């Protein structure tokens, strides 16, 4: 602990000296009475002063939690040599709001005493944090010295974005070769009925359609659609964001990315994740619970990095975007580079769906005639962008405060059904 004298020590010593000298000069013993307590206080305080020895340990209720959840943080103080007044401050990120407990707190620690301070903290926003930097300031009984220490007992805390309520996922147009939950176009082992065909040697008896066989006088076999998995790539546009206070278009985008990744992985699909923007991060598509943790951890590192570099999809490693993958692009449609990249992806034959994270709620009210005109022009440009997507056959679903993610996905499904009916 770093020890330093408070201004009180110098002041009391000075007042004592001044009083005693004044008493001598004026030959008044009363002034000795005025000076004596300051002298005695300083002298006794100096004699009794000692260096406190305080240690702290930090314990987190959980290492991983969800946005909006509360966790318990326990700080255990152990004083080998105590102090009359000990101020304890546990540093917290402003994204972690204290719900219960006093921080900072002033308490007394006797020699050998052990105290537990319990805090309840609400994780108001997703992110990766390190919790447990403890600042300690100990005062002696006389307040003449302070001893300060910073105890770095930080522990990692990962706050994942909260999940959106999604019941039905988008079905990919193409499936892969491994078994999964999607009904494939190809025929094979499955449950969904596909067609009837005449019996050939080698067919299993249990596939015989007895009713059709009886009607036609020869054996007929049921064929099924195979059940396969799919490749899904979640493409997060991190070129730009709209922000107002603590709210940003990146937050719902990450919530959607986490939800979709979890749901597709539950269906045994291979899920990949690409952050496409000022910095490029990617995770190759794969299956399993571990992949979900990888994706969510990658999401926590996501941030908007301002960049003027022109990036296109050729900068994304080829294996990250497997052929016939369903690409779900989460974008606020604020940057022309992401628009160009998406049109490029569609041009390369990817099954692309754009989920637009609406930035409109985060925009300030336009001021003045020029402001209103600029706002209208900006909205028209966005409409034109959506029109270009639709002409390229890319469904665009707008997700904002008034529309849930489930409704936005349903909108895409409806668009695809209409497109199939029109092309048939």
């Amino acid at each position, binding site marked *: 602990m770093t020890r330093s004298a*408070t201004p009180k020590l*110098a002041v009391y*010593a000075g007042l004592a000296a001044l009083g005693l*000298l004044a008493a001598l000069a004026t030959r008044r013993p009363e002034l*000795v*009475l005025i000076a004596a*307590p300051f002298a005695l206080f300083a002298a006794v305080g100096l004699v009794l002063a000692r260096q406190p020895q305080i240690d702290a340990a930090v314990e987190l209720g959980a290492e991983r939690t969800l946005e909006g959840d509360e966790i318990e943080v326990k700080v255990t103080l152990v004083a080998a040599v105590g102090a009359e*007044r000990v*101020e304890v401050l546990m540093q917290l990120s402003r994204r972690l709001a204290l719900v219960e407990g006093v921080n900072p707190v002033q308490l007394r620690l006797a020699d050998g005493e052990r105290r537990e301070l319990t805090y309840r903290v609400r994780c108001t926003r997703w992110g990766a944090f390190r919790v447990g930097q403890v600042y300690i*300031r100990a005062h002696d009984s006389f307040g003449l010295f302070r001893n300060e220490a910073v105890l770095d007992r930080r522990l990692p805390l990962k706050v994942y974005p909260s999940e959106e309520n999604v019941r039905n996922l988008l079905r990919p147009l193409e499936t892969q070769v491994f078994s999964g939950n999607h009904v494939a176009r190809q025929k094979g082992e499955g449950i969904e009925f596909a067609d009837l065909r005449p019996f050939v040697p080698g067919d299993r008896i249990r596939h015989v359609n007895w009713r059709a066989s009886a009607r036609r006088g020869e054996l007929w076999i049921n064929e099924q659609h195979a059940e396969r998995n799919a490749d899904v790539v979640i493409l997060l546009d991190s070129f730009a964001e709209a922000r107002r206070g603590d709210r940003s278009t990146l937050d719902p985008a990450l919530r959607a990315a986490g939800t979709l990744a979890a749901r597709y992985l539950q269906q045994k699909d291979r899920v990949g994740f690409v952050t496409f923007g000022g910095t490029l991060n990617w995770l190759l598509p794969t299956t399993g619970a571990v992949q979900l943790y990888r994706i969510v951890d990658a999401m926590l590192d996501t941030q908007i990095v301002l960049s003027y570099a022109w990036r296109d999809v050729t900068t994304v490693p080829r294996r990250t975007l497997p052929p016939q993958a369903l690409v779900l692009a989460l974008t606020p449609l604020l940057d022309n580079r992401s628009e160009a990249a998406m049109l490029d992806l569609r041009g390369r034959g990817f099954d692309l769906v754009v989920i637009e994270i609406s930035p409109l709620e985060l925009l300030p009210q336009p001021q003045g005639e020029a402001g209103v005109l600029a706002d209208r022009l900006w909205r028209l440009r966005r409409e034109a962008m959506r029109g270009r997507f639709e002409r390229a056959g890319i469904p665009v679903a707008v997700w904002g405060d008034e529309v849930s993610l489930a409704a936005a996905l349903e909108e895409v499904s409806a668009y695809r059904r209409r497109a199939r009916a029109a092309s048939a």
Partner: protein
Amino acid sequence: MVYAVLAGDRLPEIVAVVGATGVALMAFGLVSRWTSAFPAGLAGVAAAYGLYLALRNGAVDARAPAVAAAVFAAAELGFWSLQRTPSRSERAVLLRRIAALAAGAAATALVGSVLLVLATGASGGVGLEAAGVAAAVLAVASIARLSSRASV
């Protein structure tokens, strides 16, 4: 300060001006949290009492222990206020601090009364005066030495 002005029979205006300056400095120090202004104000208030004593004729002021206790308590309360932090004190800590302050003021008054009785009973002389000077210098030197050693 009020006591010095009301009890004084000679030049109470000067005592009042010195005391009021001290009080104003203390108040300014507390409001602006300027640590240097507060002790200067405290010294000003003590100086007003010293001036009152210097202008006073006659015997030792019997109320000096009470004045000493009041000045000490004011100093302690002032520094408590100046060293205020955003941390919330536990009730036990607060009570112990208040009790310590009250005990300090009471001890000041008690020790002051004893010293006053001793001072009143003692007869003057060069030897006693030299011993007083030596004690004062020794006290100040001890504090200075202890504080320089302790603050390392």
